[in-house]
């Protein structure tokens, strides 16, 4: 089962490689990973998407917690969090398909951020499923390139995850 895990770590030299090394060394799967500093500049927050059975997920969270530089690990269960992903999509367009592309962009509340006679580059944010949705509709026009950030997530409710 897919899990989204937030990890607060010391924002220091080698922090990312400790986490990625843990996943590769122990054979855990990693689907996406995003990292950036938090409001507290001494901390970084990583959002990981991984999958495995309950026993593996338990090991993953325990092993992450075991790292000295890890401050906090939160394994978000379904419905408890809001996840958003950014995607930049370069799609082929011609005279015929331009209008259709714009309609799709409009429906998904995406934006065209670069235009050439032969292409649109589209920016979209949203839950990963929404991004999958727009990609499916754009695919027949010919997708030249997709860059996805991997999701970042935040818990629902008033409480924040802090160190």
């Amino acid at each position, binding site marked *: 089962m897919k899990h989204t895990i937030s990890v607060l770590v*010391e924002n220091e030299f080698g922090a990312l490689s400790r986490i990625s090394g843990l996943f590769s060394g122990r054979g855990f799967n990693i689907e996406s990973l995003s990292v950036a500093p938090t409001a507290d500049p001494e901390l970084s927050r990583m959002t990981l998407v991984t999958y495995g059975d309950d026993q593996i997920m338990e*090991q993953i969270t325990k092993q992450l917690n075991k790292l*000295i530089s890890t401050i906090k690990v939160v394994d978000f269960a379904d419905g408890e969090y809001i996840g958003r992903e950014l995607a930049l999509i370069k799609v082929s367009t011609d005279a015929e398909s331009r209008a259709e592309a714009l309609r799709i962009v409009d429906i998904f509340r995406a934006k065209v951020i670069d235009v050439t006679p032969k292409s649109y580059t589209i920016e979209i944010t949203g839950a990963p499923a929404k991004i999958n949705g727009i990609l499916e509709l754009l695919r027949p026009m010919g997708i030249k390139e997709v860059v996805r950030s991997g999701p970042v997530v935040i818990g629902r409710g008033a409480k924040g995850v802090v160190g």
Partner: protein
Amino acid sequence: MELTGSQILLESLKLEGVDTIFGYPGGAVINIYDDLFSSSINHILTRHEQAAVHAADGYARCTGKVGVAIATSGPGATNTVTGIATAYMDSIPLVVICGQVPTPLIGNDAFQEADMCGITRPCTKHNFLIKDIRHLARTIKEAFYIARTGRPGPVLIDLPKDIQITKHKFSYPDKVSLRGYKPTYSGNIRQIEKAAKMILAARKPVLYVGGGITLSAAEDELLKLAEQARIPVTTTLMAMAAFPQRHPLALGMLGMHGTFYANMSVTECDLLIAVGSRFDDRVTGRIDSFAEKAKIIHVDIDPTSIGKNVAVDLPIVGDLKAVLGKLYGYLNSKTEQVKNLIEATDEWRSTIEEWKERHPMTYRSSKSVIKPQFVIEKISEMTDEDAIITTEVGQHQMWAAQFFTFRQPKTFLTSGGLGTMGFGLPSALGAQVAYPDRQVIDISGDGSFQMNSQELATLVQYQLPVKIVILNNNYLGMVRQWQQMFFEKRYSQTTMELPIDFIKLAEAYGATGLQATKVDEVEATIKQALETPGPVLINFKVSREENVLPMVPAGKAIHEMVLAS
């Protein structure tokens, strides 16, 4: 007062109570060695950096203190990796200091540069690259704290050469504040009470004890608990010395080369109390039939150990000394119930006694050829079971575990997790440095011994009276045994074709070399070795194709043993 980085390092070591370090100099640590020249810290020069780390490891294992090793950058540092990985797998507290090229050169493929933080990330508990002199003292404090607390382990400090000569005001912090590292010591009291209730309800309980018991120095608590409820105790390789093996409740080692009765007890028990052990594959055999009739309580300070290989019924995260102490205290308040438990488990202990009688730990003795097991038994007897024993890895290691009757904590130093050949001699060296007056014996094979035999020089230089016992079968015996049993005796590359004259080798270094080739020479030779001052090597020409038995073949359940006939 302003000190240089290398002076700060040495002053910090002293404040951590370090009086002895093991190491090997080189370009990137030359400043540290310059300050060591006039320091009160005792430095032992090994002949290889791997040996320096194993020596620090042996020192740590027998004293419980943090071992310290030092090496130069590049090859010096990479040579420490096997030593570090050995300590990591057995959770031994070490601080390893490596020189590094000057900070402006890092990443430039400079002479003798290696990315040690990158290389050792998976085999250290934590590691540090010091890039700023202001962080040096604090980092050393943290390194020692991390190494010795929680589940102990090796910590590496990579110290660039320019930091070693930069001056800075020295003040050593009193406290460590690591917000991501707060080990749980006390153990949840409600879980402990549940454990006590499970023990009181058990009819066939077994304590399965691992190296954590030594790391927590909880041997007394274990003994008290076992005796209180008369629970039989099986120990892993790492815990053989943590429970007196002559004790009526002792079942000896379990697992691949465990005793018949230990493996049967685990297979048949209805409650397995795992303490400081980690369900290693050499212990469990086929995992789905390991203790399959039992409820499992697992006590460990490291949450990742619990539930990793087997699902447990009751996890307790905490320090064994605290948890076992509380468990004992709780049961102590239930005198009547404990009495009932002892009565109700009488039959279980009788069953175990029958197993012990049916298949005791034994071997076929011989009058014509020296049996390696016989040598171990004799050493055990002639040292009053009081020596510090180190081993290399292979058949001799298993025989040492099986036939030396350990009775004192911290007297069996062996590479259990990583299984490092070449560990025994340098770790014996480290133990002898820690305890100059105790008997320290490296039980070795002819293969393993040659992996760090250069340390004979260190023994002689410092006149460390380590006795090296080579059980010489001219084979890489353990691999040969597998080839015999599972590869139709195709002894591929396991015959040591060149018979080494070990006596001459010992003498070349200035040590004493002895040899026994006949059974009736064994005792006299051991006696002579023990009475000879200084380092002594004893070459026992033993029965060549002797096998370590019992043996659980790979992939089998632990009750499916090949037994000694």
